[in-house]
């Protein structure tokens, strides 16, 4: 499953990122924001208009807006919600 397919408000972990699918500067920026392999993310909002773009992703205590093309390059796996999370 890729990040853009993740159901809303479901905790997940980024398993792999296909950096080659992204422009170098954008890849760099996503990494700087912490969107990288191993990061825990949840999808918080989707845009309303055609394509439901862009997406708002929560990572740590930050909310980051990105486009579906970026999210599509990120493979995620959901993590079972534990009480300690």
């Amino acid at each position, binding site marked *: 499953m890729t990040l853009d397919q993740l159901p809303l408000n479901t905790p997940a972990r980024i398993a792999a990122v296909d950096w080659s699918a992204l*422009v170098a*500067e*954008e890849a*760099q*920026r*996503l*990494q*700087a*924001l*912490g969107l*990288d392999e191993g990061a825990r993310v949840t999808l*918080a*909002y*989707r*845009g*309303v*208009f*055609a*394509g*439901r*773009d*862009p997406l*708002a992703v929560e*990572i*740590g*205590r*930050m*909310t*980051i*807006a*990105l*486009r579906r*093309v*970026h999210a599509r390059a990120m493979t995620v796996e959901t993590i079972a919600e534990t009480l300690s999370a």
Partner: protein
Amino acid sequence: MSRNPAVAALVGNPNAGKSALFNALTGARQKIANYPGVTVERKAGRLLLPSGEPVELVDLPGSYSLDATSPDEEVTRKVIMGEQDGQARPDVIVLVLDSSNLEQHLVFAQEVIELGRPTVVALNMVDLAERDGLTIDPAALQTALGVPVIPTVAVRRRGLVELAAAIGEARDRAQASAAVPRPHVTLPERRMLAHQIASAAILSETTKHRIHARLDKVLLHPWAGPPILFALLFVVFQAVFSWATPFADGIEALVGALGDFAKQILPAGLARDLLTEGVIAGVGSVVVFLPQIVILFFFILLMEATGYMARAAFLMDRLMAGVGLSGRSFIPLLSSFACAIPGIMATRSITDPKDRLTTILIAPMMTCSARLPVYAVIIAAFIPNRAVGPGIGLQGLVLFCLYVAGIIGAMGVALVLRRSVTKGAASGFIMELPKYQLPTVKDLALGLWQRAWIFLRRAGTMIFTVTIALWILLNFPRAEPGQDQINASVAGTLANGLSVVLEPIGFNRDMSLAIIPAMAAREVAVSSLATTYAVGAEDEEQAALALGDQLKSRWTLPMALAFLAWFVFAPQCLSTIAVARRETNGWKWPAFMLAYLFALAYVAAGITFWTATAAGLG
């Protein structure tokens, strides 16, 4: 040895609260200029150390990394490294961290601390972290980072004295020993360390309901969000018109009284006319719009300070993508509603060069505050002040339509440009949505004051000069008795020449006359009309008429509408052209901008005039 004051630089991630901290540390004594060669804003101010010694404090653009991905971040890197022209290498680096976003901000913090330079950490916004249920141990953080950590709340002035003292001590230490760079680590290692450091420093973390999450539920809601944004923008434009009226009336009365007073105490003659018709009528007619400009900037600053601006960018991204831009362009374009100059400068945060160029080229079409005087005076004179619905006035509605016309025009041009001259890969949109914050009255007031002062200074210098020059051109050579003074004058001759081109789109001589000096600044069109009608008045009674009444008696409705349409598109501002030249490194794009905007203005004014005439509005 050198008696130059020490330099300290504020460095940190975007949204760490740097600007609020900068305002709190330096007060109103700030100097805003540009770094030479680039148009990145340089904000500097004076900070007094507890010893009474002054330090120059520089606020650097927010960065996520020293590997710059935008011109803004490049300046931050260069200043820190001491490679930026016109800026001494900072003696002390003040790292600003958002307490409630510690883990993220510690990634960049480590990169800066690794440089081994004298560094002080301002653990900012500890109050917001507490609100979010976070308790942080500054001492643990200090041990882990190896640099002093001072908890601060910029908006409540907490920790400022301690921070100033720490800056002083760091500076003294710097003089005693040279920088010792620490071993460089990779980004994943840094991120892991950030997690460890943050986990160790956070004493307790309860998941309280975060206010911003609840606000976002509504404001970013797929269906509720966009209507809220548009409603908000509509309220802003209504407010610009209705709230400002009492203040504008007050200023107008004051200007009138001043003119009468000058007439009473001065002997009749050309000198008195220069003062009353040129200076007071001209400059006064522009100063009247100060309340509207202040109100507009108030809302823009408010949206920026609360964090809503980034949400607006999120909501607008899909629409902007439709014309080949991104939500990032929305912020520069919205700023352009105040003034295209800061708007064009704000495009620096757009990473894609084609995206950025397109945004620069369409920014002048956003209705800037300098157009407001022109719109306001024409609308007040020609559009009846009646309600067309509950709380919706016809005048406000027309104003709103003018803004919308500019936006639609800009979107259309962007669409065409992105498919032709600025063709390139589809641009992306990656941006942090900052936490919501209550803006502080002081920061808002300071921002408003800076904007109002810029406007008044322009009225006092450029508009003053242009108005006087125009008055002279209107009055010389003197007309023979019985001859029209304006037709006889230099300015009238020029305008009559220009009329040949502008007559087909409904412009009369006075309108052609007004758009020449308006190249200097758009609002000059109003003072030009005021001066022209004051000079051209046949008797005292006619001269005493307010500008609005003058216009009503001399223009038809289609003419007025054509004039409005012209101002929606025409590139009537030399400063904007100059900024575009600097930002695009050459004359090619500003020339292109001038040409297409004039063509668009001509066509739009023409279509408006012909349609209105055909509809029988004349």
